[in-house]
């Protein structure tokens, strides 16, 4: 009896963990939208005009927007390939937090190069795609895993002896 109860508890805990895992993807997307909103608010702000010429000389020339765009294409392509590979291997770990960092970096690079106005939507589309695919990966894994756990739970329920009246 005790073993069955313990097993039941473990399964319920596992189901709860899987629900939390599937929600991670949504948090990642929400955080990305918040960062994008901030970037959109400042996209017309000219950082170089706000700093002194000495600071500008110290910082040096910003990277060209073409180089940043090439980097964005290469990054998006490799990120999507890696996510698809993890999906085919049925891996459940969520890597969206790293992508949040990289995408924020791209917003920063374009901002410093004074090219965020023209390229904001490209970064936004890349972020939605990558984080959306990450979310779909953990969500579909969680859905299947929860289904299996619920089947186990119902089997454990059947094994329980009837209560003594």
């Amino acid at each position, binding site marked *: 009896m005790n073993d069955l109860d313990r097993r039941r508890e473990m399964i319920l805990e596992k189901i709860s963990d899987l629900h939390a895992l599937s929600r991670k993807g949504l948090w990642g997307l929400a955080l990305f939208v918040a960062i994008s909103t901030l970037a959109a608010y400042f996209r017309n702000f000219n950082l170089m005009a706000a700093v002194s010429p000495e600071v500008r000389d110290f910082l040096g020339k910003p990277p060209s927007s073409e180089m940043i*765009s090439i980097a964005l294409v290469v990054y998006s392509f490799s990120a999507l390939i890696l996510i698809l590979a993890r999906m085919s291997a049925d891996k459940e770990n969520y890597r969206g937090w790293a992508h949040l960092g990289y995408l924020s970096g791209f917003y920063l690079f374009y901002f410093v190069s004074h090219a965020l106005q023209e390229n904001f939507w490209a970064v936004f589309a890349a972020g939605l*795609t990558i984080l*959306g*695919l990450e979310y779909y990966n953990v969500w579909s894994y969680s859905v299947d895993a929860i289904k299996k756990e619920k089947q186990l739970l119902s089997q454990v329920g059947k094994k329980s002896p009837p209560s003594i009246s």
Partner: protein
Amino acid sequence: MRKSLTAKAIVPVALTVTGFATVCSLLLFSYTKNHLIKDEIMRELCMASTVVKATRHAMLQDDRETLHYMIKNIGENKGVERIRIFNKKGLIMFSSHQEEISNIIDKSAPGCVECHAQEDPLTALGPMDQARRFKDLSGKHLIAVTTPIYNEPSCFTAACHAHTEDQQVLGILDIAVSEEHLQGALKTLFRQLIGFWVMVVILSVGGLAVLLQRNVLLPIKQLIGFNFAISQGNLEQSPPEGVDEVELLGRSFQNMALKLHQKSKEVEELRNKLDELEKHGTGPKDSDSSANPD
């Protein structure tokens, strides 16, 4: 199950292809737009340089009337919104808009602030820094370039002007051109990119859906029907053909069903034999009273 298979196969690919195609299209548009704008600015700088050279002789001769008509005629060209020359002090000496003449431009105005931001004004700027894009009061998009008119030996040795040798810049030519044809080109490019994007997404996602339907979902549907028929006792039906794996699976199911049917028949026969033996009293139940009933 088919919906789940379809969703699992198509959703990730559709999301990936659509997203990546969108990112590339947006970056390509941005890249092409920047290049078109740079080309437009270079073209305008070339035009400004031509105007400075063309008006040089009139300036040396102090022929203000000729200079006035040159500026007026250039300003009447299609696409040229405004052309003006102002001196070092910012006073507009010549303009295609008569009402501007003798006005003073503020040093902090766009087009002037790039050089006059510091105490010692700059005497040279990079090509892209000489240009600015803005909307005029009527809402028209314009690109304006400012070109300095540099002091030369023939200028400070001429009899007309009181220029000293140490003056580097004598005046500024400012020319503003309409962005209308550039905006038109950008709109056409945008529409073409959208069309291309739509075709790529439809072809890739649609193609995948069609191939999946034909090579996976339809054979599975046929396999499901075949298995249902077998479970109802119809063992003579042949398995679905077309996809090797599905046909193999169908044959395995059929063989399994045939063996099961055969075993069931054998068990039934044995049961019948046992019943008969029990009926005639020669079975294990009647072993004690095996004596002749008579």
